[in-house]
């Protein structure tokens, strides 16, 4: 695997406050990397440093092999940015905004026109290409921003809260486009508050709290890693003994909840195997079997210590 983003000891200080404190991570080629954290945790500041918008106070950031400090133009030429706030020129039309981007990325006019048509078609704005952006809805502006970020076919795309405050239709369209882009090989760095979005979209997520990276892993691994004791919910087609269940290998407790049993264990895999064997030996067919993993929301809250009352 090749790292397309290599951040090492990224640090940003505003006055007396350290907004980003020696953050290090890598994003691999072809990956969708979710960057999560509560408000003020340093997500946007980190993204702005990585995209060369604000300078680093310490550390290094290498984007697609280029140091963002010493080779910012070369790095920027190969990535696209979708910021949190729509920043298309509202006095220009969608078409003019895309043409401007084409020129800023050094794309030949004919190619820029072809790309612009294709992208506007893709984001459903082709019919309104000659309308000034000031008349666009928030969702339309965000779709246009995505198109502007893709004009030069970037290898890497930074997105900062791309679906924040959007209607369902625009959100679904953007998420679907991101999946398609990723399938075509674009690496995606996604900053988001939306755990469900991160859970469904990202191969790995990094969680930042108070300017420090507190966890980086696949969403499923993060969910399970926060709880050393796991819960399994099981029900059988006839009554079984609670003591027998509690005595199975790996099981640390068995509590009845309605017609189900909630099993606690430190080893999910061993317990499921034991339950299957138990079912066969006692001729008690398993009706339902659910592993009750914590949600990414719970993992996020636990890791950012915001679940405390």
């Amino acid at each position, binding site marked *: 695997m090749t790292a397309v983003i290599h951040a090492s000891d990224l640090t940003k200080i505003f006055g007396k406050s350290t907004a980003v404190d020696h953050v290090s991570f890598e994003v691999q080629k072809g990956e969708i990397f979710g960057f999560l954290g509560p408000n003020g945790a340093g997500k946007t500041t980190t993204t702005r440093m990585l995209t060369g*918008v604000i300078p680093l106070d310490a550390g290094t950031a290498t984007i697609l092999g280029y140091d963002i400090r010493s080779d910012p133009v070369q790095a*920027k030429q190969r990535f696209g940015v979708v910021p949190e706030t729509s920043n298309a020129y509202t006095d220009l039309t969608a078409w003019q905004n895309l043409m*401007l981007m084409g*020129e800023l*990325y050094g794309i030949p006019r004919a190619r820029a026109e072809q790309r612009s048509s294709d992208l506007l078609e893709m984001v459903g704005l082709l019919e309104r290409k000659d309308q000034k952006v000031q008349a666009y809805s928030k969702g339309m502006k965000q779709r246009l921003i995505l198109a502007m970020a893709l004009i030069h076919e970037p290898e890497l795309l930074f997105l900062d809260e791309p679906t924040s405050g959007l209607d369902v239709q625009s959100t679904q369209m953007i998420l679907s486009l991101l999946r398609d882009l990723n399938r075509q090989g674009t690496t995606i760095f996604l900053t988001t508050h939306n755990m469900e979005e991160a859970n469904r979209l990202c191969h790995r997520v990094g969680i930042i709290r108070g300017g420090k990276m507190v966890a980086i892993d696949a969403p499923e691994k993060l969910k399970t890693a926060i709880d050393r004791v796991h819960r399994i919910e099981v029900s059988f087609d006839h009554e079984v003994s609670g003591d027998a269940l509690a005595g199975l290998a790996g099981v640390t407790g068995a509590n009845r909840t309605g017609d189900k049993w909630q099993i606690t264990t430190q080893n999910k895999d061993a317990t499921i195997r034991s339950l299957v064997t138990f079912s066969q030996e006692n001729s008690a067919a398993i009706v339902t079997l659910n592993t009750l993993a914590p949600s990414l929301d719970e993992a996020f809250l636990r890791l950012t210590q915001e679940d405390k009352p």
Partner: protein
Amino acid sequence: MNPAGFFEQVRRAWAIAKKDIRIYYFKGPVLIFGVFMPVFLFLAFFMGSRQLPLSFLISGLVGMTLFFTATAVSPAIFPWEGSAKTLERLASCPITIEAIVFGDMIASILFGIGITFVTVIIGLALGLSLLHGILLLAAIFLAACCFSAIGMLLAVPPTNVPSNIMMLSSLIKFPLVFISGIFIPLEQMPAWGLVLAVFSPLTYFTDLVRYTFTEAHYFPVLIDIAALAVFTVAFTVVTMFLHKRTMPKRM
């Protein structure tokens, strides 16, 4: 293609200039202000000071027009774009800060030159004869570069509130007009006034324009050109250096 190469960055600066012209300069109020402001100032002095000949005042009118138009919009572009977050868009694009500043300067140069031609035509329509047309063209171009660099220099303070910059801009621009031999001929200025006039690039431009219409001048023509060139280079280098330092503070 080397995106960081000089010519590629100049091409991208041209894209910035086209964007500026479309968004900020091709606006009715801006065009009207560009033409009317110097005309009204000129008329005020023409009516109130009848002993000054029209040929003297027209050089002042051309000087004021170019100075006010080339510095009219450029100081406010960065604050506008900073507050609209479009500056962040530009900062994430493969274009250097120097090229962004240069693009803003190109727009201001073209706007300044365009409106100044209107005043030159007014002068010719009033019966004045142009004696050194090529020199006037060269002087207008050089001074437009110099004044647009001043305009960008006024935009250096990293505020995203355009009114703050416009106030600062007026505070600097208006006194400069009064010390540059526009309304009071340099020959009639007191010694302290002449010392101040030497430090104003507008002085040299007005002196050059006066020469092209009347052949009268205070400084030798070569000194006027050299002074304008030195001011242009100095202001351009300083403005680019300072914007590079202050740009991150706007984000």
